[in-house]
């Protein structure tokens, strides 16, 4: 909300204030199958962001009058814990959470074979436990992995990343300091990586079409990096399942810095 007044250089000698390159993601760790009651689940850490996602369904949609006889409904709920932000968040879900839930649910609808599950609902719940810019894309990445973990048939995973501008530079995966730049532009985007179909795209800030072209390119690249981490997390679980290990899964797939 309050943007810094003094002139800051956000990229210096190709390095950002936190040491990353302009096209570099923050460290990303994904683990699936972390909650026993849910049909699918995922724990994700992305920089300081910490997210847990759970999937229930397809299950009968109730009350009956909301059922769609042609396809499953998707109910996506993005929520932030009261302590996950600098000032305590009001526990009641706000308009921001409602909007993010809507566009994120729509982003996943394209990926899931909804027509196979008429009259049902697929419920996706994501809770943000800690935050530092980019939680909506982090949530979507976790939700997508949880859907796969639940065995729900999908055209492709949804991979997502934030891209944008700070101090005049187009950069990948903005952190909170960068999002607070006076000229900050924030562009959350999500794609189906195999076809580059864009399923979520928002922006706010002042941006020219030329800047957007550059940002898009960077975003597509970032999504694909994320995609690899998602796949690796799922692979790990299924390999272990094949080995029929009975121990709990403690290893996690990790996207190291500067990959």
């Amino acid at each position, binding site marked *: *909300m309050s943007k810094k007044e003094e002139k800051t250089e956000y990229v210096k000698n190709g390095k950002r204030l936190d040491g990353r390159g302009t096209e570099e993601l923050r460290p990303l760790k994904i683990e699936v199958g972390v909650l026993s009651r849910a049909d699918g689940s995922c724990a994700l850490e992305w920089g300081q962001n910490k997210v847990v996602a759970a999937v229930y369904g397809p299950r009968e949609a109730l009350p009956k009058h909301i059922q769609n006889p042609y396809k499953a409904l998707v109910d996506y709920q993005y929520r932030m814990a009261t302590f996950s932000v600098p000032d305590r968040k009001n526990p009641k879900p706000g308009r921001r959470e409602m*909007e993010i839930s*809507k*566009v994120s649910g729509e982003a996943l609808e394209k990926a899931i074979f909804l027509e196979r599950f008429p009259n049902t609902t697929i419920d996706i719940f994501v809770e943000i436990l800690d935050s530092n810019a980019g939680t909506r894309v982090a949530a979507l990445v976790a939700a997508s992995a949880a859907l796969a973990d639940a065995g729900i048939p999908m055209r492709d995973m949804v991979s997502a990343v934030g891209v944008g501008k700070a101090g005049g530079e187009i950069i990948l995966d903005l952190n909170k300091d960068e999002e607070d730049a006076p000229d900050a532009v924030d562009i959350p985007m999500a794609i189906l990586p195999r076809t580059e179909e864009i*399923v979520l795209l928002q*922006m*706010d800030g002042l941006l020219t*079409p030329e800047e*957007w072209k550059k940002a*898009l390119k960077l975003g597509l690249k970032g999504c694909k990096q994320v995609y690899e981490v998602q796949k690796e997390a799922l692979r790990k679980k299924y390999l272990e399942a094949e080995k029929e290990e009975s121990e709990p899964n403690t290893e996690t797939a990790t996207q190291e810095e500067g990959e």
Partner: protein
Amino acid sequence: MASDIVLDLRADKVIEAIKLGKRLDNRKFDEYRKLKITKNISENANGSARVLLGETDVIAGIKMVPGDPFPDTPKEGSISVGVEFLPLASPLFEPGPPRENETELARVVDRGIRESKCLDFEKLCIKEGEKVWVVFIDMYTMNDDGNLFDACSIAALSALLETKIPKLGDEYKIVKGEYSGKLHLARKPLLCTTTKIAGHLVNDACFAEEKAMEARFSVATTEDGYMAAYQKGGSGSFSPKEIDECIDLSFAKAKEIRKQL
């Protein structure tokens, strides 16, 4: 229900036509319906406008109210944008608390105005750390024949352009019926939405076309070549190339509409 079936049949016809390069009302793919803007429709508002886009009918009204500044921006006023999908406007709207469609629309219109910096929030300061102007922008739907996003954005901007600043008396109380000047807008951000139907891009979709849509992309542009906000909606997708086309269309269409303000 019968009405759902009727809507599905109309959606089928829309798709059939689009595939043949046509729209049911014979408009070109990028053609907006007739736009009629009526200003100052409410004397009690500080600014107001009614927008007819074809048969889509929306109203925006502005109230400027002295309020407390946010603690982290003691010298800045603020805006508050709301929309109510009145049940007058459609058999599908029910009265009740705001739902996600209303929330999305209000927030996208909000971002277009806020991020374009058309309003200088520091000029909305009355006394630093003590009192600032809160500009309430409230929109209501009267008749929904599609493209509420663009209609509401046009109504909000039209109402803002007419807004008079209330005169303040003692203890920041508003002196009724007196004004101290007009609200200054540095830019004219307008939201233009492109809708994807059967793989084709069309503008200003009517209600029947929205029933047939895969996805939509709305871009708020300014007259000096910036985008201030955009938003993809709907369960379909866009290719990167389609997004570029949508952006071009939004700039072009906003330019046309801006002439009619």
